[in-house]
């Protein structure tokens, strides 16, 4: 980083009594042995440091602006629905609402599009305060079983959801067991918006991580039902919601893709969302949000990078100005050994 071309000096000028070998390799070796390889010795000169910082600033601020612009160009509609979808009578005890299978779970939300959104528009569900990265949770899966199904029967890593009634569960483990199962349908005006739910999972996962001929077996048959159920007639490789869910998130607040709307949305469009509020986040105070978002070359809306770039860039410029000022006001003669006083106490103080 601090390579200063101007001050490159060669250390090999010393005259040595070693015979110069003809081969370059030998010469290199002998220089290595004598620790006299030609070396570049950079110095942190004021000019160099100030210039570097200035350059850093002038590179970072534009990048930051571009990034920020890209991020701001992304339009998203975020709607938290977990609290509002609970009927009035259950407001006091939301957990009992979600556990009570007799209560209808459907709920309707109305979203307003403020600006024109260009397709493809991504639909995400966002969970907050949901620890997919908890150790017990992360570990509770069997990649081998997902790929090979019942043929692979060492599912001890799936504890505590590895078997049910003495029969193995496919897919096993807590992650699969707690599959997210809210569903959404979107209606614009009178017509239903077509939501593409294919190709939302990574292709590599579909092809190489989840078996094409592995079918759910004995899934959600226990006394304790976790999350969503799977169609036992569709192989795991095609169960894209499961595949998306099984890509665990590193953060306790995350979005997972639900589908894509492949039509543009006009400004002032009103979208009615009919959703099935099945998934239990009430017992631990988690939040559920529905996110409709466009995308940019940077992905979804995230101002962090832009702001951070601008911050780092401007700090660098300020720092370089401070150093410049310091240097002008208080120039230090470099390498002035007159300052040296070889006083033991001075050094060890």
């Amino acid at each position, binding site marked *: 980083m601090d*390579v200063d071309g101007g*001050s490159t000096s060669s250390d090999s000028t010393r005259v*040595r009594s070693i015979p110069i070998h003809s081969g370059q390799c030998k010469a290199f070796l002998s220089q290595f042995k004598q620790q006299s390889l030609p070396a570049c010795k950079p110095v942190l000169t004021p000019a160099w440091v100030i210039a570097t910082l200035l350059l850093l600033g002038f590179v970072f601020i534009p990048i930051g602006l571009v990034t920020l612009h890209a991020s701001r160009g992304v339009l998203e509609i975020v709607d938290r629905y977990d609290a509002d979808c609970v009927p009035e009578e259950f407001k006091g005890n939301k957990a009992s609402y979600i556990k009570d299978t007799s209560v209808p779970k459907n709920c309707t939300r109305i979203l307003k599009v403020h600006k024109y959104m260009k397709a493809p528009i991504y639909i995400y569900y966002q969970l907050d305060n949901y620890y997919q990265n908890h150790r017990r949770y992360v570990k509770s899966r069997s990649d081998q079983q997902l790929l090979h199904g019942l043929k692979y029967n060492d599912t001890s890593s799936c504890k505590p959801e590895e078997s049910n009634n003495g029969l193995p569960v496919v897919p096993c483990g807590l992650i699969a067991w707690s599959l997210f199962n809210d569903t959404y349908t979107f209606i614009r005006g009178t017509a239903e918006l077509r939501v593409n739910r294919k190709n939302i999972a990574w292709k590599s996962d579909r092809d190489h991580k989840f078996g094409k001929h592995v079918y759910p077996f004995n899934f959600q048959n226990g006394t304790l039902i976790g999350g969503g159920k799977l169609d036992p007639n569709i192989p795991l490789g095609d169960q894209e919601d499961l595949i998306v869910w099984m890509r665990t998130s590193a953060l306790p607040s995350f979005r997972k893709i639900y589908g894509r709307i492949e039509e543009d949305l006009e400004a002032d469009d009103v979208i009615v969302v009919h959703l099935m509020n099945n998934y239990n986040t009430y017992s631990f105070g988690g939040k559920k949000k529905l996110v409709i978002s466009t995308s940019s070359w940077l992905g979804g809306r995230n101002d962090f*990078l832009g702001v951070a770039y601008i911050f780092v860039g401007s700090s660098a410029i300020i720092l370089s100005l401070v150093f410049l000022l310091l240097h002008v006001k208080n120039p230090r*003669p470099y*390498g002035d050994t007159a300052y040296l006083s070889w006083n033991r106490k001075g*050094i060890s103080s």
Partner: protein
Amino acid sequence: MKRFVYINDDESPTQELYCDNRISNRKYTLLNFLPKNLWEQFSRFMNQYFLLIACLQLWSLITPVNPASTWGPLIFIFAVSATKEAWDDYNRYLSDKKANEKEVWVVRKGIKKHIQAQDIHVGNIVWLRENDEVPCDLVLIGTSDPQGLCYVETAALDGETDLKTRVIPSACMGIDSELLHKIKGVVECPNPDKDIRRFDANLRLFPPFIDNDVCPLTIKNTILQSCYLRNTEWVCGVAVYTGNETKLGMSRGVPEPKLTAMDAMIDKLTGAIFVFQIVVVIVLGIAGNVWKDTEARKKWYVLYPNEGPWYELLVIPLRFELLCSIMIPISIKVSLDLVKSLYAKFIDWDAEMIDYETGCPSHATNTAISEDLGQVEYILTDKTGTLTENKMVFRRCCISGIFYGNESGNALKDAQLLNAVASGSTDVIRFLTVMAICNTVIPVQSKTGAILYKAQSQDEDALVQAAAKLHMVLFNRSGNILDTMLLYFIMKCWRLWSSLLTGKGCQLWSEIARMERLSFCQKERMKLFFLMLLQLLEYLLMDQPIPGQQTRTFSEAVEQYAQLGLRTLCLAWRELKEDEYHEWYLMFREASSTLVDREWRIAEVCQRLEHDLEVLGVTAIEDRLQDGVPETIETLRKAGINFWMLTGDKQNTAIQIALSCNFISPEPKGQLLLIDGKTEDEVSRSFERVLLTMRITTSEPKDVAFVVDGWALEILLKHYRKAFTELAILSRTAICCRVTPSQKAQLVELLKSCDYRTLAIGDGGNDVRMIQQAAIGVGISGREGLQAARAADYSIGKFRFLKRLILVHGRYSYNRTAFLSQYSFYKSLLICFIQIFFSFISGVSGTSLFNSVSLMAYNVFYTSIPVLVSVLDKDLSEEMVMQHPQILFYCQAGRLLNPSTFAGWFGRSLFHAIVVFIISINAYAYEKSEMEEVAMMALSGCIWLQAFVVTLETNSFTILQHLAIWGNLIAFYVINWIVSSIPSSGMYTIMFRLCRQPTYWITVFLIVAAGMGPILALKYFRYTYRPSKINTLQQAERLGGPILSLGNIEPQPRSLEKEVSPLSITQPKNRSLVYEPLLSDSPNTRRSLGSGTPFDFFQSQSRSSSSSYSRNCKDN
């Protein structure tokens, strides 16, 4: 305890009693290799720690990562050191096997047979030819030489390359070589020991051989294992010690490994990190359990059971223990071992430390302690052969009161002396005779007829050469018989009767007629001379005042020569009456056949002859200083290294040499304080004065040195050890004269006990103990043999190389290790902190953000290769360091590796962990928060940061550094792409996906800028506005700024203290010197120990000050 060896007795029980001659140097056998080696490796704390971690990881409930991530490196590290051990052991086995299977001639059942060396039994008669290696310890019984002599080379045993004479016992003299097969007898000898200079045994031959008399045996009658027979056609001997019980086998042993101050510091820091880790584990463990009970139980998807097993509370803390175990980098020991051996190689390779006179390169025997070289605070140096060339030249002499050579400076050219020789002056002839014969020099006639001398002692060599130039030529020596030739025609023949043992160099000679040389009849003895060659001249003179008019002249001569820095020897003689001799001889025989305390008894008997000596004269020998000694000492003293000179030589000579090599400064600048006295009383009083003076003068940096002799030193070490320690700390320079090898070692021990890093340098056998005792031992491979060089950690050809060894190699090693070790901790802490931060957002459950492969590769590959090339880093050029040796202060005071610098690195890793973590989780939030991607993002950030940290901390870039730093970065991506293309791996396709995302690259650059910007700014600020001396010199060196010569701040001279003896002291003439002979076990303890009179004042002083022992300026 004795052993009885029955010669040539095939049926005797001794064969079973003692081991056969199978030599085994092996540490392991095939069967016990694995358990023994593992046991040894696990006796180190670090290894136990790693093993514990690795075992805990086998418990899948708590392991955050695959156990392979610890087992892999652990097994690798163990395999490397086990392989090294195995290879060494295999080589030992091969050399043992070669020695064991060597064919030798042994008498079996009366017939000479060719058998393997390993089948020799105690009591066998072994025949050896010229140039054979001796297979076991033998007592000689016959040689090809009619005088019963043989010559051996003992280089493998004691490192001395000259030939030593060995002689068969008198009882075996004259036995016909044919009869030697049938010889029977018994050797009574002590049990095996490792003293290679001593063999007190008796031989008794059975009839029909000679009489039944006991014949004493000494080391002179033996040839020891691993010596070589030279210049002798054949010898035969009786095996007395065999196999591993030989003197060599017994003295074999592994020396205790030395630990550098830096290693100790690293261990301390490791301990601190360990404590920190425990604290983290406890805090996070408690937090984790609390979070589990309050939060995690509510989270239905985690499905915590209500009732856990009994160890449930321990699970989370143990998980964190495992997660944090990487805080202590497993690779640090391997990296350190690797770079240390490279430092050693650099010393071996250094072309500027080759002694071109002898072609002898420097060599680092001990590869593990190069950093200590840079932290040396005290150098204890021998004088002769170390500071001086040990090339003795005879310069002056004083014979019967007449000084020769004073005008020309060379007595050999003094016409007056040559005339005296030519005219045959009795005194001069006697003087020359003593010079010529009283020694162990072996004359060898070369083909051209010139006589070459092979001498063990350079002094003796100088004397014999000088005598030869003065026409007293020693031209033949066969055993005890010497031939001399005076003025080309007067031949004389001398027989040596005894080299007496009181350490004064006395020998007993008689003149014999030339025809008598082959007859051993003692009655034909004509005259007996008692000749002495005295090193300790003045003591002889002083302690038995001879009523001679010349005594005064001689002591003046000694004084005068010593002031010139010459080595003086006094020659004396005495004629013995025949009956006196007989009387003495009986006692001597008796004493020399005792088994217990033989040396002491003989010395006591010999004592009886040493009186009424007539002094013949004084010789003065010049020993020139080696090239570059004054400059080297000056440079190293500027570097803040304190010098002590420990010599066996006389005080005046020592002081003169010290002056001429800048050891002490002459009068106005320097000051010499003498500690002397002849009773304990006087010594302590003078010591008390010196200590007081020293306390006063320390405030002003003046060159104050104290001088102490062996006798005073003994008292001080015995009774005033504490106060003497204080003096040692206060004084930068000391001269200790007349010290014994064990006192040298004691002084080293004393300085070590005050936590100073000591370097001992010497060249002779008498320095070996000091060299082994010191933190660093340096041997000069000089004229006194290789003994010191073998025992030392470093061997160099000349004293002046010490400068380069310390300032260049020592300093670079220190700097490099300081960086490498702290960096190792930095990178481990970095990744560990990220794991800890991650645990806060993963429910304090002990999830590992990184996968096992990444973790393992991070520690083993990604971060260790760039840092290994820091062994090429040079903060300052060699010339700059040589010009400004003061820069070594930084190393001595440990300024580059101490808790505060370590705290800096700790802070840096914390800061970088925060930067990486915050940026990664924010840039990869929401829909991008997939675990593998976030982990890879954070890991990439760490790798990039560490590449820039290494770059920023590197002072000089060679092509190798660029290759390692940037090549490593590329390798990181290549490795990860490879792993990402394996479908079964956890991170399948991850790296490809990331590299395609612009966000990834933008984030990486953000991490680098945010992580390195503040560090660059801080470094620049300190470099420019708070520069250390190193920085200033760097700037001066690289920008070609004005390099002013740095004058050492020297204070103005100040007035002399009253008690202080100035340098030009001429010691009071009438002082009756009483000195202890050099050999400490000499029986004549003439000095009466004064009763220990208490000095109330002095003791209270020392007590009050002892509490404030401050290591001067060592505290940081």
